[in-house]
């Protein structure tokens, strides 16, 4: 089910792989900026991919609280659940 957190996490990790080197292991606690080196521009592009993948709109304002992969998955889950 698309709104299941674990399913979202899995699909999110798949997308994040495209922005990182293949040898990096991504877990929920992984820090997007410090560990995956996803800078502000990459993050904005990632958000657009995520919006299409999950058919949602992610306001840029909501990203201020996103630090880890878990934070981002939680945000997507929250937006999906609210639809």
């Amino acid at each position, binding site marked *: 089910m698309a709104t299941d957190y674990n399913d979202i996490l899995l699909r999110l990790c798949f997308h994040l792989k495209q922005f990182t080197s293949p040898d990096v292991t991504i877990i929920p606690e992984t820090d997007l900026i410090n560990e995956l080196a996803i800078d*502000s521009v990459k993050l904005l592009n990632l958000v657009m991919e995520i919006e299409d993948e999950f058919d949602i*709109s992610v*306001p840029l304002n909501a990203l201020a609280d996103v630090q880890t992969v878990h934070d981002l998955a939680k945000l997507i889950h929250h937006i999906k659940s609210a639809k």
Partner: protein
Amino acid sequence: MSLLDKLDVVAAARKALLPEGLEVFGTPIEEVYSATEARVGDRRILFLGTNNYLGLTFAPECLQAAHEALDKEGTGTTGSRMANGSYSGHRALEREFADFYHCHSGIVFTTGYQANLAMISGLAGAGDVVLIDGDSHASIYDGCRLSGAEIIRFRHNDVADMEKRLRRLGERSRSTLIVAEGIYSMLGDQAPLAEIVSIKNAYNSILLLDEAHSLGVLGKTGQGLVEETGLIDGVDFITGTFSKSLGSIGGYCVSNHPQLDQLRYISRPYIFTASPSPATIASARAALKLLRDGTELRRQLWQNSRQLYARLKALGYQLGPQPGPVIANILDSPQQALMLWKGLLDHGIYVNLILPPAAPEGKALVRCSVSAAHTSEQMDHVGDVFAELRKSIFQ
């Protein structure tokens, strides 16, 4: 990390990217000789990185108007429009802008940056949505942040992507402000206005178009993209700046919505700043007349732009998608862009260097801005220097 440590990180990043002693950003200009020539260090340079599209910074009419206003009204207003800074010149320029666009009313702001800040934060608020192009100018992003509205981006100039995002909003599309630009400052391309207006109407949203780079450049009388496309009635609010084609400093908004005037009472970037000085308003008023009658200036501007764009394209440079006064050379790395920028300056040509994250998609740009005041011979010379540098840097 302390507040000052954060600035040390910025300094270290700059040092790693830019060679010691090279003042790439904020290059000191010692003397200005004309609309197209100045001195940097000991070298006389050709300005190819200003936004002086019509070359009006030394127009005698503008100089005289500014001198007279300075003598009559002093150096500054020392107050906001709401307090003691609403002079006859400000009000006259607002009427003249409204007349120029055949609109109900207009507002003048202290800078173009503040025009977008004031309009976006005045129109949208908490609970609303602002839908913006991914390549929007910083003033648009900052206006969105100030508004407290939800900010959603669509892929640059991709109307299908824009519509998809409006569809997802459902009923909220009715409280959505869409923001686009007549000409985008990074790549120099134009917004697909007909499609944007059509989608905006279908979703009952509001559209604000920033004509900062297209005022004076597009349309028979220089209104911008709204005139070029004949779509002025489809745009709710038009903003722009005096600091490009008008050769002054300030900003404006015009609209047929009578509610525009209410922004004067709620928009913080309008209320809490000093109004433009009398001299800047006077020169902008004189320049607006020249701009409106500037058919020949626009013809020369476009001839120069097409000439340089075609030459650079023929040389193999990767350029923005369409010709215009903003000609962006897209480079794969900041190092390449830096070498090209430095090479041009060593040959007496001053252009703009744009490095990530300011450049789109992580690329680096060397951006030329063409003026009506340039000559065809100067465009030939610039092309020759680009040809020489292509051999030495890229081969």
